[in-house]
């Protein structure tokens, strides 16, 4: 137990939290607005990472890979909703069946990637850059880039949600879809935008995740999905700000416990935090449990 590993482990925590925040905000936004638990989210991340990989291997820069991953994520999330999820909802599939629909879609995506790419690890062709030591932290340039990207994305999302009509409409829909519809907010358009935005963040998170872990395979995203869900639940599902805080908490808890106790237990500690929070406050930190609305 030494203080000298504390600051570096906080540093690692910030990197993990950045990736997690990108992913969790995308996940929670979409869930809040559409009420569909999209268990294919992690596999969509992997798919975006593959697209980024293909761009990278054809000589594209990391920036281009990020762009391609984000564009792919946005487009495929949008199409997934329009071509699969919404038709199932229209056909009368209940919340219940929808979870199985999304899980099946995830399994299909993951195994399609496996069938095309094979059961091997992939690595982007890039340099993590030299180590820098701001404030006693140890980062390489790639990690600084990840943190920078996440912070920028979070600021943009926050501004979008609080400052624009569209963002306010999204939050209103998340809080109460019926009421939002009654008060004339075009919910269909809001839903489309939510999927696009969620997919964009999902794609970014996918590329960034494999930049950080350096090697990835077809199961990388689905393995990460559970901690994304944990971060979203910690913050109260549907709350973007909550998901950011949840990501920060889980990122720090995993890396600090990895440094002080054992790396093999880091996720268990993260989930431990979640379980305790759920016991104390079943709907997450930032929400009030409400089933009926004023009328």
């Amino acid at each position, binding site marked *: 137990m030494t203080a000298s590993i504390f600051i570096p482990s906080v540093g690692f925590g910030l990197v993990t939290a950045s990736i997690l925040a990108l992913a969790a905000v995308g996940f929670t936004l979409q869930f809040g607005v559409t009420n569909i638990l999209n268990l294919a989210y992690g596999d969509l991340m992997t798919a975006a990472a593959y697209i980024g990989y293909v761009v990278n291997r054809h000589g594209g820069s990391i920036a281009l890979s990020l762009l391609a991953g984000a564009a792919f994520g946005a487009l495929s999330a949008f199409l997934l909703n329009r071509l699969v999820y919404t038709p199932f909802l229209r056909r009368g599939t209940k919340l219940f069946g929808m979870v199985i629909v999304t899980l099946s879609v995830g399994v299909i995506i993951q195994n399609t990637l496996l069938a095309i790419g094979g059961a091997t690890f992939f690595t982007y062709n890039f340099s993590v850059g030299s180590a820098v030591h701001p404030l006693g932290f140890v980062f390489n340039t790639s990690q600084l880039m990840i943190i920078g990207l996440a912070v920028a994305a979070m600021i943009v999302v926050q501004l979008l949600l609080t400052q624009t009509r569209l963002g306010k409409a999204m939050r209103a829909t998340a809080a109460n879809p019926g009421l939002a519809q009654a008060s004339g907010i075009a919910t269909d358009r809001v839903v489309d935008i939510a999927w696009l935005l969620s997919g964009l963040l999902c794609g970014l998170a996918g590329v960034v995740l494999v930049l950080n872990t350096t090697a990835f395979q077809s199961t990388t995203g689905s393995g990460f999905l559970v901690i994304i869900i944990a971060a979203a639940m910690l913050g109260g599902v549907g709350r973007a700000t909550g998901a950011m805080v949840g990501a920060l908490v889980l990122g720090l808890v995993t890396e600090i416990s990895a440094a002080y106790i054992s790396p093999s237990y880091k996720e268990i500690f993260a989930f431990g935090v979640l379980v305790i929070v759920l016991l104390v406050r079943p709907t997450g930190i930032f929400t009030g449990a*409400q*089933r*009926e*609305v*004023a*009328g």
Partner: protein
Amino acid sequence: MSAAAGAAPASAPVAGGLLTVDELRRDFGGVWAVDGAGFTVKAGSITSLIGPNGAGKSTVVGIVGGAVKPTSGRVMFDGEDITHLAPHDRARRGLVRTYQLSSEFGKLTVLENLLVAAPRQRGESLLTLVVGKRYWREEEERHVVQARTLLERFGMSEKEDEYAGNLSGGQKRLVEIMRSLMADPKLLLLDEPMAGVNPTLARSIENDLVMLAREGLTLLIVEHELDVVERVSDSVVVMSLGKVIATGTMAELRARREVLDAYLGE
């Protein structure tokens, strides 16, 4: 003791009535949906809760039913403070509610919808696992007879084996009312029981409610149609902006200016 015993069940305190809500307040993110509402429902009466949209009626119903927690205030039922009881514990004490939206058990038949509501069933206890069917068969037969009597009374016998999810809106309403009666209620809390029901059936439901009250059941009804309210209610509670602004018979209320204003301002 069931409500059927008469207009004044022995267990209810005479002074307070069967249901008393006191100084209820509830905020939703800074907005007071209910802001100090209080009223009493007398045993054996039909009390209507009216008011314009957004007056806080649904929130009051939610609080009385137990689905919504009040920020402050008290709910007394049958001489007991039930403010903090779970909805199912309230139902077991005889306070049974229906919902504004159809809430049938869609994949259960009409008869099953009624049977499920019978209180304190042996067949729902874990001993069923150990003993098997003979533990609950007789009780079940009794419930089937009860349920069929209700079906006949409400003219729904022919729909007995129909999935409740396949019924028309009005028939679903009937199922919900019959189901509530199977639950052995002292007080029925009906949230817009005539909403989405065709006029003929609505009129017939109206007559049923009056009949139930005559037989000793207490009813608290949220209703929009003032004509209906006037025909069925012994007492009317008017809410506006989260507060109770008037109580009395409909005739008394019609004469009062602020009540009309609350409606005209809608």
